[in-house]
């Protein structure tokens, strides 16, 4: 950290901690509450805030202040970020709110609307030394009514991982195998072509399954749906929207995959553990997941732990366009820090977030959990450069979109997932699936959603 930044931190901390005190009589211990989901995929999300408090404490000590800042962490044992956000809402309602919390970005709208997320525009403007280097596109994930209400803590990229050895096994040329990402990028190779290829691999006996996806609700499906032109939010009105024709296209693809042995019709009955072993164990040709899965794939034995060995075995593509000439889709799902505007120490909390977001703190989180950087400067750090998967993944970022920061995105995703499950398991037809999703959305969300087509 530069000298200027140190001085700025000290000045800000002194302003916050010692208002009007020239000679503090007694030492104050300020406790900052932090809410985070107990999540093995990102322990430093909380750890970096604690480290930021240590930095502030060192500066206070250097300035001769007896005051200290401590961070008390509440690790919430929720099944996912949606469940965690609902628990946090309850904590706010019961006056047990933390000063800082970690959340999935799409919940920021709900928190901000309820008055639980601080508008950080002034804080960001007042502290350019901390925020000027943030990758601009990531700010989009923190907006509510056009204002930034959170600080991106990490970023990611999702993709279809495909097994190159299986393509070799069914006789595909190296040119085809290595050229696949470019063909997807140009829109020449569609999502239907990908399914046909997966069927070829399964029929050729190279894999048991063609394409597997997550077995629960999550952002991946919106990424594939974007390939079919499904845009979940109308930016003009700020309302959620659902297109009947895009849903029809997407669910037809799901059904085709299930009917043709490409995706197991009981994919949603699989446990995460089973899903995570399928690619490394050579049982599936394609797995739809995210960049953070790469360390696990290597740990489970997909290849040797080197860039060369991995890229010789596994390739990455976006979700291809549904029609030739269309654009492929990707989706990033940043996790963010937000500050409770009702906190007695909101400014100090924001300062801790600012420090925790600096490259020195954020890079260890990024490289140990397979998340891409939030600042440009991180790409120059040796640790980041050594993490070859991150720099490769960052190349897919330009096609990334984000989930809408809408208050009703949780029920919206739930309805879509149930529809997918119904069609994939053969319990309902594509038409019934579309009707089911649209009915659920209308019944659950009412005026918050507009049905298109």
């Amino acid at each position, binding site marked *: 950290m530069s000298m200027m930044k140190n001085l700025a931190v000290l000045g800000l901390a002194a302003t916050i901690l010692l208002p009007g005190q020239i000679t503090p009589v007694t030492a104050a211990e300020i406790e900052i509450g932090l809410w985070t989901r107990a999540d093995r995929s990102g322990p430093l999300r909380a750890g970096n805030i604690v480290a930021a408090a240590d930095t502030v404490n060192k500066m206070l000590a250097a300035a001769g202040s007896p005051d200290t800042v401590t961070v008390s962490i509440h690790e919430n044992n929720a099944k996912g970020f*949606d*469940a965690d956000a*609902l628990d946090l*809402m*309850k904590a*706010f*309602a*019961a006056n047990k709110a933390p000063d800082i919390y970690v959340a999935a970005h799409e919940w920021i709208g*709900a928190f901000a609307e*309820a008055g*639980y997320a601080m508008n950080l525009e002034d804080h960001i403007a007042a502290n350019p030394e901390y925020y000027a280097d943030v990758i601009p596109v990531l700010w989009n994930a923190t907006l509510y009514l056009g204002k930034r209400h959170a600080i991106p803590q990490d970023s990611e990229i999702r993709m279809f991982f495909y097994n190159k050895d299986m393509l070799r096994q069914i006789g595909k040329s190296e040119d085809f195998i290595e050229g696949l990402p470019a063909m997807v990028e140009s829109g020449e190779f569609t999502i239907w072509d990908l399914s046909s290829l997966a069927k070829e691999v399964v029929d050729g006996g190279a894999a048991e399954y063609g394409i597997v996806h997550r077995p629960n609700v999550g952002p991946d499906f919106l990424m594939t749906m974007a390939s079919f032109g499904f845009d979940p939010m109308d930016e003009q009105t700020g309302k959620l929207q659902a297109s009947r024709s895009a849903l029809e296209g997407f669910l037809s693809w799901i059904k085709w995959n299930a009917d043709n042995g490409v995706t*197991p*019709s*009981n994919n*949603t*009955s*699989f*446990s995460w*553990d*089973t899903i995570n*072993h399928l690619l490394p164990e050579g049982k599936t040709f394609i797995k739809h997941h995210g960049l953070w899965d790469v360390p696990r794939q290597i740990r489970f034995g997909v290849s040797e732990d080197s860039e060369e060995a991995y890229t010789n075995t596994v390739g990455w593509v976006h979700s291809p366009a549904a029609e030739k000439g269309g654009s492929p889709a990707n989706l990033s799902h940043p996790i963010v820090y937000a500050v409770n505007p009702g906190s007695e120490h909101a400014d100090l909390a924001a300062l801790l977030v600012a420090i925790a977001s600096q490259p020195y703190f954020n890079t260890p989180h990024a490289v140990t959990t397979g998340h891409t950087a939030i600042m440009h400067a991180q790409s120059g750090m040796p640790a980041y450069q050594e993490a070859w998967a991150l720099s490769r993944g960052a190349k897919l970022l330009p096609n990334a979109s984000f989930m809408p920061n809408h208050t009703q995105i*949780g*029920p919206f995703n*739930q309805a879509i997932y*149930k529809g997918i*499950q*119904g069609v994939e*398991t053969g*319990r*309902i037809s594509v038409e019934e699936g579309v009707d089911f999703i649209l*009915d659920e959305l209308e*019944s*659950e969300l009412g005026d918050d959603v507009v049905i298109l087509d």
Partner: protein
Amino acid sequence: MSADLITQQKRRQRTNFVIFLGPACLLLLMFFVLPVVVDIAVAFTDMGRTLKAGEFTFENFERMFTRDRRLLKTLTLTFIYVLGTLAFFNVTFGLILALVTTALPSRAGGFFRAVWLLPRMSPSVVYALLWAWAIDPTERGLINQIFLALGIPILDLQNDFPMVLIIVANGFIGASMGMIIFTSAIRSIPEHLFHAARTDGAGGLRVVWHITLPAIRWPISFITVYQTLSLLVSFEYIWLITDGGPFFDTTVYALYVYKRAFESGQYAYGATLALLLVVIGVAASMLMWRFLNMKALLQEPRIEVH
């Protein structure tokens, strides 16, 4: 003086009432009456994820009766689940276990009863995790490992027979309660009745039919009523094993209420749905009370032994 005595007695009666019945009344009020009152109050609001109640509204009732397309299907599913679990496990299998284990030598009977109590003694999450592992639809699952060793094709219980799965998973736990109650009831039947029946030439089944079953009629009625109500409101094993899926195939009514309230954050609508569950529970109790003649079970004994 006598008036004083009466007053004192009355005061004593009131004190006794407070001391002996007070705690029970307080608990009843806190955990049975108050939740229903709160539920009714919440049902008439628009309380959402922030737990803030805005306005008084009938919107939730209107939605439940006119727009909720899952309601009827969920209720039908619940009926099948409750009936199936009762019929195959909680009453019938519990009875079979009791009959068999009481017929066995005492040590062997005790051992088998202990084995059947194990699922009930396991923490629910551990029990559910074991099931999740057992039914994994790939060769990683315990059942499929056994099937593969026997040359039987892989089975996906969760996808192909979801209702059977939740009935069996719940039934394995539910059967033990019936087993304990029925065992105790069978043990209390005077032994000379069995000897007399045997002397008259009755076989095992006839003894069960003519001696045992009539003697344990009331415990059977009690278990039926109690377990029906218990199954109506329980969902934790279903939630942990299938999460109500695939699609809505195992979303029983109590789970549906939970999901609407706590997974979607629609607390007011969840409260409205829960209110219907209270009504169904009360109606089911009253019907069974009437048809199983439970009043006779609770009447005062006609013979008093001194």
